[in-house]
């Protein structure tokens, strides 16, 4: 194994280390910045509850501290790190073709997009481009992965609100998608398929009928999903007007993806900074207006429809050619740095690679969209009820794997 590098500690930022003799509050509950206070001199305490890390509806091991006044949230703070696996540090001691297996595992619900961003970054460093056929296959697998991820989001969103049925119905369709992914890439989740230079293997002949069958059958399932949750008055009463994140707040927190588009900002990496074959595809980017949970929900449902359209177009239009460019077995990109981003189901997923000319990177940093999407709960949750907390966190579509890396 190549030896590990050690880096010297950066200098402390001013203000981060308390000065000599400063009074540090030691009785505060870990995480919350204020001690819960009573109301109007009555001894009514505010409750501090832990939502998570073991909880049926935080999407992964998420730990949110809530200060509650009865049912109403006064303050909220997320305590992260329960799923930290040191992916970025591990990447410094892996060779470039091995890192694909690492980035797969960060955002496990959309592995193709993470691999794609990484492949684009390495290709930028190497100064090569994947052949057109590889780009179309990447987009096809990417849109299938987007559908799978959005279906998972839909099912868990329904489950958070109490409806058990939609979860299992969406899993039925997700199984069809995972079968397609397994037929093409070999695995249902950790694909190791999109490589710097192209894709690992060409599409097998049995994949096309499976994809066609799915494309034919999915619109009916989608209309059922709309009947189950979108048209449901209980859901409408519960999510309209809740958790409003306006465009300014969203941009200030660095949100991207469905959350930002729900607020009305038309930023989609596929149209703003096109990559792959997206310029040749015909699709629209759905936008919300107000930025409440309903808008984010409808944006993602619309995105599923658009993804389905794109899968149909991609399947028809795959060009002939090679599925992989000529790259050496052991990649040694010249020294430099590159940042490449893709539109993952959660938002702008970016990989920043710094190469020093050897066969392992000097630094790999993942810009995970869910982390920025989650950071807004500090601002949005105060004032809601506990039931809204669950619904809002569900509408942000987070995956703890990429938040904690």
């Amino acid at each position, binding site marked *: *194994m190549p030896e590990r590098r050690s880096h010297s500690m950066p200098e402390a930022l001013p203000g981060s280390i308390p000065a000599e003799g400063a009074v540090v509050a030691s009785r505060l509950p870990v995480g919350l910045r204020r001690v819960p206070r009573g109301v109007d001199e009555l001894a009514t305490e505010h409750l501090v509850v832990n939502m998570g890390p073991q909880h049926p509806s935080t999407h992964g091991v998420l730990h949110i501290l809530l200060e509650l006044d009865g049912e109403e949230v006064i303050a909220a703070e997320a305590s992260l790190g329960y799923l930290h696996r040191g992916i970025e540090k591990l990447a410094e001691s*892996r060779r470039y*073709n*091995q890192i694909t*297996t*690492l980035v797969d595992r960060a955002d496990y619900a959309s592995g193709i997009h993470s691999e794609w961003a990484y492949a684009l970054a390495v290709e930028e460093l190497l100064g090569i481009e994947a052949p057109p056929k590889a780009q179309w296959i990447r987009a096809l697998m990417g849109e299938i992965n987007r559908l799978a991820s959005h279906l998972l989001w839909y099912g868990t969103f329904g489950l958070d609100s109490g409806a058990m*049925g939609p979860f299992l*119905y969406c899993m*039925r369709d997700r*199984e069809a998608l995972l*079968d397609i992914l*397994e*037929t*093409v*890439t*070999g*695995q249902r989740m*950790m694909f*190791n398929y999109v490589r710097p230079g192209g894709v*690992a*293997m*060409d599409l*097998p002949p*049995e994949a096309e009928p499976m994809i066609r069958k799915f494309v034919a059958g999915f619109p009916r399932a989608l209309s*059922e999903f709309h*009947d*189950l*949750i979108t*048209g*449901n*008055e*209980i859901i*409408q009463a519960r999510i309209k007007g809740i958790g409003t994140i306006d465009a300014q707040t969203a941009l200030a927190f660095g949100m991207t993806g469905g959350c930002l588009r729900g607020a009305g900002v038309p930023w989609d990496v596929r149209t703003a900074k096109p990559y792959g074959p997206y310029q040749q595809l015909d699709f629209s980017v759905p936008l919300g207006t107000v930025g409440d949970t309903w808008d984010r929900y409808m944006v993602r449902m619309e995105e599923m429809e658009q993804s389905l359209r794109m899968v149909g177009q991609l399947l028809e239009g795959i060009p002939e050619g090679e599925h*992989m460019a*000529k*790259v*050496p*077995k052991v990649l040694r990109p010249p020294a430099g740095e590159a940042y490449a981003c893709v539109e993952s189901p959660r938002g702008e997923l970016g990989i920043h690679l710094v190469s020093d000319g050897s066969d392992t990177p000097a630094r790999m940093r993942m810009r995970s969209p869910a982390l920025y999407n989650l950071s807004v709960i500090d601002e949005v949750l105060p004032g809601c009820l506990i039931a809204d907390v669950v619904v809002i966190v569900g509408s942000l579509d987070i995956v703890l794997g990429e938040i904690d890396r």
Partner: protein
Amino acid sequence: MAYGLGLLKGMGVAFRNLVRGPITVQYPDERLALPQRARWAVIPLWDGSGATRCTACTNCVRACPDGILDLRVTTREDKTKHIDAFDYEIGACMMCGLCVEACPFDAIAMGQDYELATSDVERMTVSLLSDVDAASARREKPASEAVAPAPGDAPAGEA
């Protein structure tokens, strides 16, 4: 408070799904077939005469991101190699397939056996080859060095 139609429509969807029937595959009585490219535990491949194709080049050992392959070789005076042990820590394997892609001699492949769960720690490490002579490296080499061979292609010879 016109709570009504949407809820009833949703319940109609549920009823339709009730009538459509379950989609359960009752494992272990029924099993789904795996696609050809499914990657599970690594298995050794044999050539037509039943000997291993492994030349102990250790490409796979170096390709593995977690370093779970262990190839112990003794080189005799006439430069032929004898594989003492080729151990594979199946308990740590993430089935990424990089070892199989790196092998230039088609000596290993990703098998399709996924029922690997065991309560015996000893069985977390599997011996792929032990105490055999390595094949000669001077036989025909498939594919050029530039592109990694695709693990999905049909392996020559018997699995």
